[in-house]
């Protein structure tokens, strides 16, 4: 399987562990990535807030290069990069005027882009749909038995709806399925697609910290050993600001935040170092010792107590 690949600025440094583990895991599944040559920043959620056309022109330069390299499908691992690339392609296709103006701008740098010529997809989509659960299971050497994980999807990969999503917009389950396939125990996590606050820490730290607190609380209340994510921004916020959350709210959350590719890599028998484990600020060391060689005992079926209130019964017609 061959795809175009757009790393994005975060994967260069802040989320280098995500980059490393993505490369290690995709290689194990014979996925070939052709990096967008001399790619530029997608503008994150910032450029679009300042000036519309340059923001879209900035994103489209990457699409144009990917098309030139004949990548029919372009993969991004970062949520913001993924949504920006996908949205630019989609809106250029929807609005003739926008398309015309952006192509005029691109021409100034010697590029052009025909909307629809590159299909933008997220890494999770590739691993879940193109590699598939069965192929992952076949390669497992070291199952993650008894490790309790809370898969966290954030906002930009599951939403918005109108451009076609590969999973539910509000209650996605693809990463849950992958984690279960690895042998891990997936805990209930109602806030799995809630927002980590994004760049809100720079605008109102109080608002941002409260958003992170809710997510950390929800995962801790459901007894997760760690949170698994697919986004560099979510990882950074929940990891680097966890201490600030604890300080502000008097809590004692101690949840390591790892990438889903690191979890897959562990189950495939790769070393922690190879996967960039140890780069997280809240150490995953203690949590990972919960991995057992034995699968968890099957939960016993609990019979309803006779003293419980009767359930309503539908009348037969």
């Amino acid at each position: 399987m061959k795809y175009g690949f757009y790393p994005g600025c975060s994967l260069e440094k802040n989320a280098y562990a995500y980059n490393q583990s993505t490369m290690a895991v995709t290689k194990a599944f014979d996925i070939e990535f052709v990096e967008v040559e001399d790619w530029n920043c997608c503008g994150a959620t910032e450029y679009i807030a300042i000036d519309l056309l340059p923001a879209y022109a900035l994103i489209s330069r990457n699409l144009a290069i990917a098309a030139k390299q004949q990548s029919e499908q372009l993969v991004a691992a970062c949520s913001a990069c993924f949504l920006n690339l996908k949205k630019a392609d989609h809106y250029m296709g929807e609005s003739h005027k926008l398309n015309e103006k952006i192509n005029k701008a691109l021409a100034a740098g010697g590029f052009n882009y025909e909307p629809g010529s590159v299909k933008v997809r997220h890494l999770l989509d590739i691993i879940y749909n193109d590699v598939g659960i069965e192929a992952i299971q076949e390669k497992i050497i070291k199952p993650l038995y008894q490790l309790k994980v809370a898969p966290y999807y954030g906002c930009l990969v599951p939403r918005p709806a109108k451009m076609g999503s590969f999973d539910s917009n509000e209650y996605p389950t693809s990463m849950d399925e992958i984690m279960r396939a690895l042998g891990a125990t997936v805990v209930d996590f109602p806030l799995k697609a809630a927002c980590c606050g994004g760049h809100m820490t720079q605008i109102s730290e109080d608002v941002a910290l409260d958003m992170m607190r809710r997510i950390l609380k929800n995962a801790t209340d459901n007894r997760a050993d760690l949170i698994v994510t697919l986004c560099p921004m979510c990882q950074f916020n929940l990891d680097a600001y966890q201490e600030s959350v604890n300080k502000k709210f008097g809590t004692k959350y101690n949840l390591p935040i790892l990438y889903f590719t690191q979890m897959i890599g562990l189950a495939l028998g790769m070393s922690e170092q190879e996967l960039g484990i140890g780069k997280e600020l809240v150490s995953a060391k203690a949590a990972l010792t919960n991995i057992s060689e034995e699968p968890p005992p099957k939960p016993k079926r609990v019979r309803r107590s006779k003293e419980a209130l009767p359930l309503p019964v539908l009348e037969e017609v």
Partner: protein
Amino acid sequence: MAIAATLARAPTFFDEVVNNTPGGDPHLELCLQCGTCGGSCPSGPDMDHTPRALFAMINAGMKEQVLRSNTPWYCVSCYYCMVRCPQEIKITDILYTLKRMAIKEGNYRDSTASDAPGFSETFIDFVENYGRSFEVGVAARHHLRHHPLKMVGMATGFGLDMLLKGRMDITPNRIKGLEGLQAILKKAKELGGEA
């Protein structure tokens, strides 16, 4: 967009918002005032007006109050409102439009989120000059401009940890085709205007 082409009157604030939102029709005129957006919003309680209220204000032509509110800047871009809106209004996109308009008109300076555009501007400064973003530079320059005291916190808090873990660059990376990119951005700025 279609509305502007068929109007026989000067465009209203409502038209301006619609015409500056990219892609197809944002369906702003379809708002039922149901409040699903505000109820779904993680930062809704901290906003001056929820999106629902803001849309009624746009309809009423309250340009200054809308652009001075902190609402667009407190939008975290999570898209919950957009997937839940029964009228399929492109709420998040409209809030981005309002951010751009607030900067253009300068109203944001009076809002409770007055340094928010500064963060975005610092961010794009680096993108325009290097082609890549640069976290250390963005954070440092933003705080120097707006909250110098926070710099101390950054250096002693997780900033140092991030540096020690090798998760931050000391210098920005520059792309090879920077001149071409700058030419593209310059042209895009010239073309400007509605989407």
